[in-house]
């Protein structure tokens, strides 16, 4: 049985859970496979960190947890720091370029960056950064057919936002197709702002 472990992490409000849900749904419903998605809450329901785990398989998944992810998608610095060490050797690390600064080179990993937030903002709604990320994920990993993911996106968002989200998906997917070719091991991110007053 082939089994792929995926973790998507960031902070509350970035739509981490929905992204994971789309991936799982694509596998389960539009690919006739199996998927188990679990979430880790912070101690409180609001704010703070947010992380979701998806296990995709061709047969029902028994053990529902991700222990050594094949793919890690991080959308915050904290998520990057916390979860990168878990990644399987040779695993894929997908990062939100504007939110995460790599602290070291990861020669044992395949690292890909995407400015998902910026791309989402270009579409007029920062909110859809998670779906941009899903598109990017689809293109880079090739784990699931583009169409399955597309349908899962369409099926997971309110009707009023369907169009927008589908555009976000495409945007991420395209960006991934371009970037997927170059191993962006040396993703370097803008310095984050800091204060001292």
């Amino acid at each position, binding site marked *: 049985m082939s089994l792929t472990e995926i973790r998507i992490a960031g902070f509350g409000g970035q739509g981490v859970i929905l992204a994971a849900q789309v991936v799982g749904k694509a596998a389960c419903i539009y690919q006739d496979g199996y998927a188990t998605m679990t979430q880790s809450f912070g101690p*409180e*329901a*609001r*704010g*703070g960190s947010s992380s979701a785990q998806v296990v995709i398989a061709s047969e029902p998944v028994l053990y529902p947890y991700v222990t050594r992810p094949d793919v890690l998608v991080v959308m915050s610095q904290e998520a990057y720091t916390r979860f990168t060490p878990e990644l399987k050797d040779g695993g894929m690390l997908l990062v939100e370029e504007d939110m995460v600064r790599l602290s070291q080179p990861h020669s044992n990993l395949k690292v890909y960056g995407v400015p998902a937030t910026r791309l989402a903002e270009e579409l007029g709604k920062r909110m859809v950064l998670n779906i941009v990320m899903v598109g990017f994920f689809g293109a880079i990993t090739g784990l699931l057919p583009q169409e399955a993911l597309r349908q899962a996106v369409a099926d997971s968002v309110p009707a009023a936002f369907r169009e927008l989200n589908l555009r976000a998906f495409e945007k991420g997917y395209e960006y991934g197709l371009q970037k997927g070719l170059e191993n962006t091991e040396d993703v370097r991110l803008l310095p984050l702002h800091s204060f001292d007053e």
Partner: protein
Amino acid sequence: MSEVLTPVNPVEPFLRAERMPHIWCPGCGIGTTVNSFARALIESKVDLDRVAIVSGIGCTGRVAGYLKLDSFHTTHGRAIPFATGLKLANPALQVVVYSGDGDLFAIGGNHLIHAARRNIDLKVICVNNLIYAMTGGQTAPTTPGAAITTTAPYGVYEPAFNLPALAEAAGASYVARWTTFHVRQMARSMQEVFAKKGFCFIEVLSPCPTLYQRRNKMGDGLDAMKFYKEHSRTRNGAPTGEVGLTRDGEIVVGKFVDRDRPEFRDLMRDRFTHQLGDRYVDDAEMAEHPHCGGEDGA
């Protein structure tokens, strides 16, 4: 050269600094109420060692855990009866109940009306964000009609309580309502109730951008604050029957009730003295020397 007079945030000494930052969302009003509370404590010069905070469960319920006072985070809805036991066992305490609208008026409604009836010396601060926030935005008995909540996805149809009217009918000695916009008035009310004996009730309308407003397209915390500023009307002494809230209507604020009813312990003392004379042993004196063996240790 300039000299610094208050180089420390006045609320800071009241906070458990090691627990900051708190869990409340950006634009949540609960923290603002804490500022007014801190100011009231300072102004009223109560002995801080003798102030106890009792909270139930909820976002507001977390106040107890952030205040550097003797503080109790009890069970959902039961802050008032816990506080009742605490106050009766140690009458020297200034006991403040600080909790949410759901905690105090949904599951806890019975305790509130009975404590008001008894007129026991508790100071109840109810942060009313019109929703069950901690659990994710369900209908509260305060949620105004037509608002969307997770348990009323097509809009709330249950009528809401008018909290001041209920508190008054049950017997509260002091009833006021403010919003988090009214930081000074709120502080003044809090100061007043520290000086007043009996059951006192202060309702504070407070933004919940994350769960109440977002779902109802009411903007963020600041939008709520502006709304309060624009739609509030101060009517001290307004008949509480007239101060019910609606989703977008006027918010009547002010001190509605401030009356003298004998306090529970005074009633108790009077009755026992009347019946038993010298044989009555007033345990208010004994609270200082608990019988449980206190200092002796194990």
